[in-house]
């Protein structure tokens, strides 16, 4: 029996902050020491970046001190992980940080995903996106200067987080251009990798008529292979070429750099995770949640939000030598997302492993709920209130 188990949480995003706080609530100080390692001292609310390109959100309001969101008994270390030493239960940190390595008895990996536009030739030079604060600012500047032409919006690589965001962006873009008086001078094309406008059929059935109603052209079966910035061409692996004046393509994502090719992850850094227990395969003392996992489910804050109570319950039971109990004893694939459809209307999607979403007609009520959630996030989610 170990004295006081050391729990190490990697990542200061939604998943990492929430799981650390839940564990601090469930486990007494005598039952576990909890340390969280984050590469940044700031906690970012990434869904807000969707509005930055249109000047509808100041990105400076989308981050807060990570320390201020953590339970006081959680020790916070700021540093980037360089390596996992699975054999010796150690995490090594980059550079000249005060702490070179940290040992653990239990590890929770919540290091999320990162955009890798460099995986698509020409995309970094030729394309915009809004999946980092800097990129969202740059796209804002480009849209401020835009005077008409062809805007191509789409999914530029898989996987990508927040699966509904490209659809939301194109709806908001159409509204933005209309309000600016530029809609008549602008052709908008929305591209998607498969044979409909969204992966979930029930969502596609709601979104496709809205796209048609607003004159947004659709190019399906479009998987971006390369971008030719000189000729302003987006080229798909299916052989389609689209000319553009402004290109907005969600880059492909990868897991954290230190995970790429590690013993617990694949070459892109996605951690091999059990879909119900959220334990890392063959490592019963390691858990993963959120974007970090290799599970074929949405990479989104909502996923981490609903996974964290399961990891907290299972890890607590493991430390106490008990069986996990109750509704959080295993993860059922639950995810809830809002879908902005422009003109102050939105819909909501709720689904799990067994039930596809029933998509309500977009209404102002869901838009209002989303706006309220964006503000209430700081008080409700990272702290584990809901």
């Amino acid at each position, binding site marked *: 029996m170990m004295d006081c188990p050391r729990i190490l949480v990697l990542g200061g995003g939604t998943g990492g902050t929430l799981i650390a706080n839940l564990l601090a609530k469930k486990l007494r100080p005598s039952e576990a020491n909890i340390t969280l390692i984050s590469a940044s001292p700031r906690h970012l609310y990434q869904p807000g970046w969707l509005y930055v390109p249109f000047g509808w959100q100041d990105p400076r309001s989308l981050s807060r001190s990570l320390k201020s969101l953590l339970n006081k008994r959680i020790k916070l270390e700021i540093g980037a992980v360089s390596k996992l030493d699975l054999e010796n239960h150690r995490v090594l940190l980059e550079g000249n940080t005060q702490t070179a390595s940290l040992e653990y008895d239990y590890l929770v990996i919540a290091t999320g995903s990162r955009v890798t536009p460099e995986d698509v030739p020409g995309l970094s030079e030729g394309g915009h996106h809004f999946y980092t604060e800097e990129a969202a600012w740059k796209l804002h500047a480009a849209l401020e200067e835009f005077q008409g032409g062809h805007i191509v919006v789409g999914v530029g*690589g898989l996987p990508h987080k927040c*699966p509904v965001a490209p659809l939301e962006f194109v709806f908001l873009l159409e509204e933005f251009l209309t309000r600016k008086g530029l809609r008549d001078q602008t052709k908008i094309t929305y591209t998607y990798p498969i044979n409909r406008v969204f*992966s979930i059929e029930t969502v596609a059935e709601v979104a496709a008529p809205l796209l048609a109603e607003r004159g947004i052209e659709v190019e399906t*079966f479009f998987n971006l292979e390369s971008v030719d910035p000189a000729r302003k061409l987006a080229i798909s692996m*299916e052989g389609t070429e689209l000319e553009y004046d402004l290109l907005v393509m969600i880059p492909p994502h990868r897991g954290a750099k230190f995970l790429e090719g590690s013993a617990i992850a694949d*070459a892109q850094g996605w951690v091999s995770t059990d879909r119900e227990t959220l334990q890392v395969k063959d490592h019963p003392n390691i858990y993963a949640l959120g974007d970090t996992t290799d599970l074929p489910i949405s990479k989104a804050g909502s996923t981490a939000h609903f996974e964290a109570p399961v990891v907290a319950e299972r890890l607590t039971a493991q430390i106490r030598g008990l069986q996990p109990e109750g509704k959080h004893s295993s993860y059922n694939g639950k995810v809830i997302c809002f879908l902005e459809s422009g003109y102050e209307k939105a819909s909501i999607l709720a*689904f799990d*492993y067994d039930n596809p979403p029933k998509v309500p007609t977009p209404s102002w009520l869901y838009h209002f709920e989303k706006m309220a959630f964006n503000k209430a996030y700081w008080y409700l989610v990272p702290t584990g209130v809901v």
Partner: protein
Amino acid sequence: MTSVLNQTQLTKEIDARGSFCPGPLMELIRNIKTANIGDTIGVLSSDKGSITDIPAWAAKARHELVGIQDVNGDIKRIVVRKTH
């Protein structure tokens, strides 16, 4: 088809059961992108649309549909070989 599948050695199998978002086809596409030419990838899917969506994409993207196999109830295994 099933006898062909029984003799096919999979390079990788994707368990996309219960994956509504991003869905089995999106999972296949991302795996095909990083696979080697000649790799054979199986997708386990509980989504009824997969048996039409995946063959349609394989035809459009010029990859080979090796076959579709009943696994258990509504669950199918759809196998695609990367050809280029």
